[in-house]
């Protein structure tokens, strides 16, 4: 069983949903980012999403855009992000890691070599924002051959017909983008989520994670119960950004983010 499937199965028997925090690799520097990654499981992360910095993050709002720029300024490359995952895996063999990013760095690295290297580093899943199912043949075979789950995204305006079309080939879990919009802006209402999740369930048996607009412990708890997991990204990065001094990490950076993560985890586990 893959680490992603094992983790969701274990949580199901615990009777709760997952908390999936997000960090942008190398934000604001390699060392801080690795320390944050290493601290996340103990602070309550059930799975972890690592953003791969890209120069043109067209689906992201200002918070993650700024994080990507800090990561790039700190020298982030796809190869170095994989190295970061490898170092994390030295200490943690169980927490699933999902890389989230845009296609061009992967395309430039070479899809075949990337999938092999990512699996070897300990990556479990890939979310490629600008690679819809129509274009996923670029990665699908190599990802499958290496045991990597290509996570499919679903949006509020994805029709039932399309859900039935694209979800049978989904792997790992389904990522529900809760709003039509970019990261870190609006939040979906409880009613909207309550209407959306059954539509996805009707088309897939995989776990469903809700992302985009989940900022507070209450929202995280609600989302993890309405679906199977809650992704929190911009809210954590906002906290990280608030601890920086002229763009540099301070002694508060890692503790502040992990403290917020603990609060989110407490709410999800209640």
């Amino acid at each position, binding site marked *: 069983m893959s680490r992603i499937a094992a983790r969701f199965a274990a949580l199901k028997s615990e009777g709760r949903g997952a908390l999936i925090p997000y960090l942008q690799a190398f934000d604001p520097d390699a060392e801080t980012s690795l320390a944050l990654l290493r601290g996340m499981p103990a602070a309550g992360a059930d799975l972890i999403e690592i953003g791969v910095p*890209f*120069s*043109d*993050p*067209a*689906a992201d*709002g200002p918070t993650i*855009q700024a994080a990507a720029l800090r990561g*790039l300024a700190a020298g982030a*490359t*796809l*190869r170095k992000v994989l190295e970061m995952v490898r170092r994390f895996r030295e200490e943690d063999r169980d927490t699933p890691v999902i890389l989230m990013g*845009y*296609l*061009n*760095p*992967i*395309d*430039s*690295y070479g899809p075949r070599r990337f999938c092999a290297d990512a699996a070897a580093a300990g990556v479990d899943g890939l979310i490629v*924002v*600008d*690679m*819809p199912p*129509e*274009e996923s043949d670029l990665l699908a075979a190599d990802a499958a051959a290496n045991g990597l789950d290509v996570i*499919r*995204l*679903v*949006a*509020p*305006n*994805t*029709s039932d017909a*399309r859900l039935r079309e694209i979800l049978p080939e989904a792997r790992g879990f389904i990522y529900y*983008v809760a709003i*039509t*919009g*970019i990261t870190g*802006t609006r939040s979906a209402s409880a009613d909207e989520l309550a209407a959306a999740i059954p539509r996805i369930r009707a088309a897939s048996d995989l776990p469903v994670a809700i992302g985009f607009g989940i900022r507070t412990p209450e929202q995280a708890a609600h989302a993890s119960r309405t679906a199977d997991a809650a992704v929190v990204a911009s809210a954590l990065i906002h906290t990280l950004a608030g601890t920086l001094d002229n763009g540099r990490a301070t002694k508060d950076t890692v503790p502040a983010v992990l403290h917020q993560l603990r609060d989110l985890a407490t709410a999800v586990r209640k």
Partner: protein
Amino acid sequence: MPASDPQTQPNSLRAGPDWRGRFGTFGGQFVAETLIPLVKDLETAYEAARNDPSFHETLAYYFRDYVGRPSPLWFAERLTQELGGAKIYLKREELNHTGSHKLNNVMGQILLARRMGKTRIVAETGAGQHGVATATVCALFGLKCVIYMGATDVERQKPNVFRMHLLGAEVKPVTAGAGTLKDAMNEAMRDWVANVADTYFLVGTVAGPHPYPRMVRDFQSIIGEETREQILEAEGRLPDYIVAAIGGGSNAMGIFHPFLDEPSVKLIGVEAAGLGLESGKTAASISRGRSGVLHGNRTYLLQDGNGQIEEAHSISAGLDYPGIGPEHSWLHEIGRATYVGATDQEALDAFQLLTRTEGIIPALECAHGLAHVMTLAPKLPQDRIIVLNLSGRGDKDIFTVAQHLGVTL
């Protein structure tokens, strides 16, 4: 569409894109899931429109009475004498309403947006020509208009920013990245994804997710169709060369496309070489880039070894884009069109030459095309014919040119 629709003819270079929106390996629909229903709706709506004779009649009416088409094909006699070689014709797209070829595409897409019931238009702009054209048709039809423009470009294209304001558009400066066209494109896509219900994204060039490259090309192909008729009337034969400047590549695609199946007509796209093709400061995606994925399509991109997109550089804000339309990438790979570069300085020299020999002040964008004509024409015998697409007028550029000539206005 006319009966000679190349989509139905075998072995035509004009048949692309395929069902996946690809020209060879280029193009496609590389967008977030939230945008998939929108690009598919657009595909369906455009397909219906292009098969509807009344859509073409309406477009023809606006082309004639509002845009001012057909644009003349002018024999540039003094320029020809000055260069002492091939005969040079200028396709006068700068005489269109709003001063460039941009209005051809905008007119077509705004009619489509109205058919689709959209009430709010967003667009990206570099030099401001596409922004002005979009603001113009939004004024004409009473639609809400939001233009994203890089903060750097807002600064260097002030007259166009003011024009857009006068036309009732909201101009949103984009400070992300280097504040140029690429960043404006990102921001326009973010707006579109956040306003899926009422908003139409009016892409200004032959790039972006399918069906934009094809649709924009179709609307711009009026340039090449007219050129064909006009040169046959003037010379009784097709030209030997067609030259056009390339940023995203819409004016070039528009004049190239009707000639793709005419092997005797050589097609030359001129990219902005900026400070020189070897300088690292260029906007020459084909000469200096490689295949990658950005803004919804696979195409040649300026990028570093890690797949991060690089900032383009050109004296001309309209060419300052690190990508190029996917059909050009394909034409380059199959060798049907040739892509060369012209530097900032060569464009400035060409700008002045045309102004003094023909009394036509060209946009700095098409001055790049002219710069190549200046090296090409003298090498050719006098019975050869070159057509240059003069895609825009240069009034907007006089401040930039003055600055480079050391003149304070």
